[in-house]
């Protein structure tokens, strides 16, 4: 991990992208976690990498939205309804 950080405490974009998930999950140990935080603050590309990942996660991460979408796209399908209802009753 030591060689990811330069003597002046900087990291390369390559390292940020490679560690992005670990960084977002707070899994990195210091000083790498802070070095990446600083890098992202000043690098447009890397901050866009993180923001776009966040936007994607926001889209897929809402369980209520999933349930509503399932209702709309899957469970309300005419062909599946009666069968699904029967299954539900069995449960």
């Amino acid at each position, binding site marked *: 991990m030591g060689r990811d950080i330069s003597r002046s405490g900087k990291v390369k974009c390559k390292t940020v992208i490679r560690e992005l998930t670990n960084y977002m999950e707070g899994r990195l140990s210091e000083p790498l976690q802070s070095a990446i935080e600083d890098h992202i603050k000043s690098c447009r590309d890397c901050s866009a990498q993180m923001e776009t990942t966040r936007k994607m*996660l926001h889209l897929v991460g809402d369980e209520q939205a999933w349930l509503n979408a399932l209702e709309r796209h899957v469970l309300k399908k005419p062909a599946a309804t009666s069968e699904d209802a029967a299954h539900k009753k069995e449960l």
Partner: protein
Amino acid sequence: MASANTPTICQGCEVTVLKQEADPFPPEEIMTVVERAKEGDVDAFWRLVEPFQQCLYVTAYSMLRNAGDAEEVVQETMLKALKHLDQLKDGHRFRGWLMTIATNEARMIMRKGMKEVSFEDDAEWDPKIFSLRDYADWKDVPSDALERKEVWEAVHRAMQSLSPACREVFVLRDVQHFTVPEVADILAINEDKVSVRLHRARLQMRDLLAPLFREPLSPWIPMKMMADMSAIMIHRLVSCKKVLREISSYIDGEVNPDLRARIEEHLKYCRRCKLVLNTTRKILYLVADDKVLIPPFAIKGRQIPH
């Protein structure tokens, strides 16, 4: 591997899903209910698992993308949970424990469908695909966009393109919001492996879904407006041609009340005619026709449409 100190019931699920149906038991009560269920109180067991049905279904469906298979996973999970209840040692782990059973069931169905499904191989992935690009113009897509068919389809196509190993990690972490240690526990793999797969899954999902975030989605006409639209259709919407022909009479307040109402209705929905109307008004002021030079608010006793 055991994570007794990490709460297994996720915040998101508790708030958004469980409130809809039965309230889940607090973790400390779960073991008491489990004891009752073990003694043959099946009713207690159903009350225990019922709140988790929906999140099990979401998990199974997002892994398999098939309603019948997802139902099967939920049912099998319930039955196996009942059968193996004595293996549950920690009430805090209950949701994760159910999820382990569900994941195994989903894997079995996936294996049936394909000759060889690997949940171990982390090799075939080329990080070069995800080079730096300009992502600056990405817009927000709200999660209720999932209700739109094209978004739903795109998300599922993207998820199906993940390797099964990456997909299950992604669903557990980013859809169900288990923590990385919890996912490791559920899948019985180490946390680093979870993180590696999660990283691939996220970048791959993001890049595959890029078109949703970059291209303008077709306008999402709210239901209310759709209803208004059909009401207007029935009431014989006045045509653009007619509006344009009558526009100066309209500005001068010289059209009859019926036509005026219909033109106004039209202008609510037709941006083009509205634009023409506004431009015409401006031009009329500019050409200094003394009839319209007086600002409308100064005119008393004469109705000026705005």
